[in-house]
């Protein structure tokens, strides 16, 4: 017997490329991305929505891909941190994470970078408290978070003079 029976066709635009893959309908979006679309930037840290390592953008909004059913996202535009940079040109946030050592093992980066970017989109000049809250859907076991906060802060637009 084979376990491949019952695969269904899933169409996704992954990191800007429109693609089709035959996926097991039991797959979470995380599994489909990693196993069927070769997009391994999002990681499986908990599969309960608690760690954020699996974060991607779905139709532009950040999402924990372990909490989504793959087949439900048929036709969606999905972006991972692999397509954040413009070719070799890192975004200022990626650059800041690198320069300020905002990671050690790096397993949490999908969540931290995307939550950081999402925050800066919503609030261009966040306070430290807002930064800490914005990344508190994500866990990092290595850094103690200070360097992550610093990296996001360094990309804040200076507050308009009042």
């Amino acid at each position, binding site marked *: 017997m084979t376990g491949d029976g019952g695969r269904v066709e899933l169409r996704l635009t992954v990191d800007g490329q429109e693609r089709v893959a035959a996926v097991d309908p039991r797959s979470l979006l995380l599994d489909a991305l990693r196993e069927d679309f070769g997009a391994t930037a999002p990681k499986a840290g908990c599969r309960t929505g608690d760690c954020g390592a699996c974060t991607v953008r779905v139709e532009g909004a950040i999402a924990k891909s*372990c909490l989504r059913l793959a087949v439900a996202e048929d036709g969606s535009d999905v972006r991972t941190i692999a397509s954040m940079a413009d070719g070799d040109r890192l975004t200022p946030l990626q650059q800041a994470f690198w320069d300020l050592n905002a990671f050690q093992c790096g397993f949490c980066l999908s969540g931290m970078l995307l939550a950081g970017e999402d925050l800066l989109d919503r609030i261009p000049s966040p306070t430290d408290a807002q930064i800490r809250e914005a*990344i508190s*859907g994500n866990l990092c076991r290595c850094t103690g978070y200070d360097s992550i906060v610093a990296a996001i802060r360094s990309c804040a637009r200076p507050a308009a003079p009042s």
Partner: protein
Amino acid sequence: MIPERFGYVAPTDLAGCVAALAEGGRVLAGGTWVLPEMGRGESAPAQLVDLRRAGLGGVTATGGGLRIGAMCTYAELLDSDAVAAHAPLLRTMADQITGGWALRNQATVGGSAVAARPQSDVPAALVASAAVARIAGPAGERELPVAELFAGAMRSALGPGEVLAGFDVPSAAGTGHGYVKLKRGWSSWPIATAAALVRLDAAGACTAATLVLGAVSAVPVPVDLSALTGQVLDTDAVRAAADTAAAAVVQPWGDVLAPPSYRAAVAGPVARRALSAALSSALSDAREESR
């Protein structure tokens, strides 16, 4: 990765969802609870009926209040001007949901209500808001005061094949609100919540006060505050009300994060803080108005 096989349908209207559910299976809303449960093999429905295309999302202002779709997410609550105007309590509640924006973008009010987990924010906040649940099922549609939706721990009053369509929430404009949640750090489930509404007359006397405790019992605990009506609320009155609240917790909930004795002990302080917050928000609303 979900071990057991299941079917998947995403009907495009409520009737389609009800029809699909007649074949059995489980409703999929945001999926933040149901998918991890299936991943652990704790639930193995024959099919998932996804509500995402059924038009159950969003918030709209109605004559006397709000209509909140079952698929309304925490993010939608936070983004909605109508919620800010008519149900600021729900907004404050949503602002304290953990999991980050990724979670808020996805988890739904309806999902949290039907999950009916004692350790959660939505149930008590909805009860305090006097929401009415709109339910569709094989026998047609019905309405239910939301307090009756919470039949027990992890048990909603939905019958087989029924779908929660949403809630009608009367406007709380002009009412002060307070929402206090106690938890053991940002990783933790809620351990005690209190949702409070206080309405004052021009003289500053209380015309209506509502207080509902969450997470301290299997289902939300409404506290009878009719004694406050007509009083000018001072610290002593708030304290007395908090004592009433603590006494209302007769069967405190216990879990791995906090035993029943702890929940019983913190119910009073949490109630007092929520009431105080509601009172000061009512007072500042009044000041605002008189300006």
